[in-house]
C-alpha cells in the first residue's frame, strides 16, 4: 500500500505539489478558497495554457522552443496594429500565418539542417524580438474594440470564453496525441528517432510540424491576450517560455521525449497559476515568484534525472 502510494506520488509529483499548496492556503489564508479565485485562476492560465499544449507536443517529440517568448508579444502588437486597419478576421489570419512562418523557419533549421533546437529558437527569438521592437519602437499599442473586448472579458456561467477555448485546446491536443497517427508518430519520433525512421514515419516532417504548431499556438495565444488586455505590448508574455516549460516538465512530461500527456501539462499549468495567485494573495514580490518558478524548474529537472537513474537501478535489480 505504502509502496503504491509512493509510486503514485512519484509519477504524479504535480498533484502532490498542488495538494501542498492547497493545505498551506487552507491553514494560513482560508480566504483564498472562493469561486472568484477559481475563475481568476482559469483566466490566468488559459492564454499560456494554449502555448503549453503545443509545447507538450513538441517536448514529447523530443524538441523544445524558446521563440514562443517573442512570437506571442509580437502577435499582440500586430493584432493591435492591424485590427483597426484591416478588420478583425483578416488580421487574425495574417497573424496566424506569421506564427506559422516563424515556426516553419525554426522547423526547417532543426529538422532539415539538424541544428540544435535550443540555439535555433534562441536566435529566432532574438531576431523576432528585434523585428518587434523596431516595429513598435518599444512602445505598447492600444487595441480598443467592442467586439474583441466582449469576447476577451465575457463568460458563460462565470467561466471565461478564453478559458473555454483553453479547455477545447486541451481536449483537442489530447485527441491528437492519443488517437491520431500524427500524435503517435510524435511519441515514436521522440522515443527513438531511428526506430521511428525505420518504421517509415517521416520523422523530418514530424519535427518540422512540431515547430509550426508551436508558432500557430503562440500567435493565437497572443491574439487572445490582446482581446483580454485591450492592448498589444512587447512586454506581454516575456515569461511564457519559462512558465510553459515549467508546467510541462512539472506535469511529468520528460524532456528526453517519447512520454507525457497534455493532462499532466494542464495540472502543471494549474500549479504554476496557483503559485502566482498565492504570491499575489500574500503580497509577495513578483520577482520572488519568478525566482521560485525558476528554482522549481531546476529542482524538477534534477528530480527527473534522479528518478530515471532510480528506475534503471530497479530494472537492474538493485
Amino acid at each position: 500500500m505504502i509502496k503504491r502510494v509512493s509510486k503514485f506520488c512519484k509519477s504524479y509529483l504535480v498533484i502532490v505539489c498542488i495538494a501542498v499548496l492547497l493545505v498551506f492556503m487552507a491553514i494560513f489564508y482560508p480566504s483564498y478558497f472562493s469561486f472568484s479565485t477559481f475563475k481568476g485562476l482559469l483566466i490566468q492560465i488559459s492564454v499560456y495554457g494554449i502555448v503549453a499544449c503545443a509545447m507538450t507536443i513538441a517536448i514529447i517529440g523530443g524538441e523544445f522552443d524558446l521563440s514562443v517568448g517573442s512570437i506571442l508579444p509580437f502577435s499582440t502588437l500586430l493584432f493591435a496594429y492591424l485590427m483597426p486597419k484591416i478588420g478583425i478576421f483578416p488580421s487574425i489570419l495574417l497573424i496566424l500565418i506569421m506564427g506559422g512562418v516563424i515556426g516553419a523557419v525554426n522547423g526547417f533549421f532543426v529538422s532539415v539542417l539538424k541544428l540544435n533546437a535550443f540555439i535555433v529558437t534562441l536566435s529566432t527569438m532574438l531576431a523576432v524580438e528585434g523585428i518587434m521592437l523596431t516595429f513598435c519602437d518599444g512602445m505598447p499599442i492600444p487595441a480598443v474594440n467592442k467586439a474583441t473586448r466582449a469576447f476577451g472579458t465575457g463568460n458563460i456561467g462565470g467561466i471565461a470564453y478564453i478559458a473555454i477555448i483553453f479547455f477545447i485546446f486541451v481536449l483537442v491536443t489530447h485527441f491528437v496525441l492519443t488517437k491520431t497517427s500524427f500524435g503517435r508518430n510524435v511519441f515514436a519520433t521522440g522515443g527513438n528517432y531511428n526506430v521511428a525512421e525505420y518504421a517509415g514515419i517521416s520523422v523530418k516532417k514530424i519535427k518540422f510540424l512540431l515547430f509550426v504548431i508551436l508558432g500557430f499556438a503562440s500567435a493565437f495565444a497572443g491574439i487572445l491576450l490582446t482581446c483580454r488586455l485591450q492592448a498589444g505590448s512587447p512586454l506581454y508574455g516575456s515569461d511564457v517560455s519559462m512558465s510553459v516549460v515549467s508546467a510541462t516538465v512539472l506535469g511529468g512530461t520528460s524532456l528526453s521525449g517519447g512520454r507525457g500527456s497534455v493532462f499532466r501539462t494542464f495540472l502543471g499549468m494549474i500549479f504554476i497559476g496557483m503559485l502566482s495567485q498565492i504570491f499575489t494573495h500574500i503580497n509577495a514580490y513578483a520577482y520572488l515568484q519568478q525566482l521560485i518558478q525558476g528554482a522549481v524548474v531546476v529542482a524538477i529537472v534534477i528530480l527527473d534525472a534522479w528518478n530515471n537513474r532510480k528506475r534503471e537501478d530497479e530494472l537492474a535489480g538493485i
Partner: protein
Amino acid sequence: MSDVILEMKNITKRFPGVVALDDVSFCVGKGEIRALVGENGAGKSTLMKILNGAYSADSGEIWMHGKRVMNKNPLEAQHNGLSIIYQEFNLVPSLSVAENIFIGRLKQGRKAIDWKDIYKKAEELMHNLNYDIDVRETVENLSVAQKQMIEITKALSVDAKVIIMDEPSAVLTENELRKLFDIVLDLKSKGITVIYISHRLEEIFQICDSVTVLRDGQIIDTSEIKDTTKQQLIEKMVGRKLEQEFPTRNVELGETVLKVNALNRGNKVKNISFELRKGEILGLAGLVGAGRTETVRLLVGADRAVSGNLEIKGQNVNMKSPLEAKRSGIVLLPEDRKTQGLLLEMPITQNISVVGLEKVKNKFRLLSRGTEKEEAMKYFKTLKIKAPSATQRVSFLSGGNQQKVVIAKWLFSGADILIFDEPTRGIDVGAKYEIYMVMNELVAQGKSIIMISSDMNEVVAMSDRVIVMHDGEIRGELEGAEINPESVLKYAIE
C-alpha cells in the same frame, strides 16, 4: 530444394581498405531454416545490412519471389517481405507492446485510432505464437526475451516472408531458447524462411536445415546440415588449423595479486569471488548477458558494488571510482573501445597521456607536447603501433591499432592488472595475433590479465584458467586440461 524465395547474385561491397563482400551469391528456399555462420568480420553483418537496405552494394543484384528488388532502406526491405531482428532491438522503450508492433501503421482509413482493435489484433498475433505478453505493457519494463518476441511478432504482422535473426540466442536462457526454437519451427511450418545467424554451432545442428559459411567476405560453402559435422564447419569458418591462430607462451605463475570477495550488484553480479595470480591470464567465459562486463566494471570502480570487497597484493582497495582503481593498478580495456576506451577525436599522444598528465609536464607545470610525443613513441616500438605519426587522430586507426593505443595508455599509467573485455572484437584476423602476442608479453613481464571473451577458441587457447559465468553467478572454474569448448559451454548454458 523447394521454391527459391531470396537470391543474392554476385554482391560485392568495398569499404576503404577492405573488401567486405567479394562476389557473394546466396540463395534460400521457401520455408527453409538456413544458418549463416562465420567469424567476426567475415561479412555477415555487411551482408545483412545490404539485404536490409542499410548499405547499398557496389555491384550485384537481389531477387525476391523471382523479381529483382532494390532495397534502398529498411522500410522498403520490409515491404518486400524481409525483416531483420537485430541484437539491439528496434523498439521504442516508452511505448506499449501493441503500439511497437504496429508502429507507423496504427491507423487505417480516416477515422481516429481504434485502440481496442489494435490491442485485439496484437493479442491475436501473440496468441498465434502461443506467447503470453500483456500487449498494454510498456516495452521498457519487459525482459530481453520478451522484447525479442515482440520483434518476431512485429515481423509477422508486416507479413514477412524472410526473417533474419542476428544471434537471437545470445541473450536467452535455456528455457527461452527452447521456446524460440518452437517458434522458429512454427514459422517454418507457415512457409516462412528464417536465416539464423549464430556462433553456437550446437543450435544450428538442432534446428537448421542447411548452413552457409562465410569467411573473409566470401561464401566458402553451403551444405545440408545432415551432410556436415561441427568439426568441418569450424575448419571452414577458420580456414586453417586452430593451433596457428594463437602464439604459445611459457610463464611461471607467481603469488596471488588480486582477491575478489563476494561482490554483488543487482541481478547481474551475484556473490562473485575469485583470485588472480601474477603472470596469469584468467579467462572469463559465459554468454552475452551473463554479467561478465558488469562484474569487471565493479572491479575498476566504473560502477559501484552493493557489497563485497577487493584485495590487491594483500591490501584492501576501495573501488569507489576509476581513479582509485587506476592508482591501485587495476584497469579496464572496454569492449566498446570507441565510446569507452578512446577519445576518438584526439591524437594518439593525448589518448595515452590522459591517464598521467603529471608525467608530461615541464618545469613550469605546463604540458609539454615534446615529452608527450616521446612517451608515445616508446609504445610505438614496444607494441608495434602502426600510424603515420604519433599525433594522428585515433579515429583514423584500424581496430587493432586502436586497441594497442588503449593498451599503451594503461601501460603508461603503470597498471599491473589489465582487464580485457573482448580484446579482439572487431579486429582483423592478422591483427588478432599481434594482440595475443602483446598479452603474452605483458604476463611475461609479471603483469596479470583478466580476459572476457565470447570467442571460444580465444578462451581455450589463451587462458591459464577459466571462470564461467551464467546469470550473474560463477558456475564453474576450469584449469589446465579441463579447459575445452564442451565443458566451458556446459557451464555457460547450464
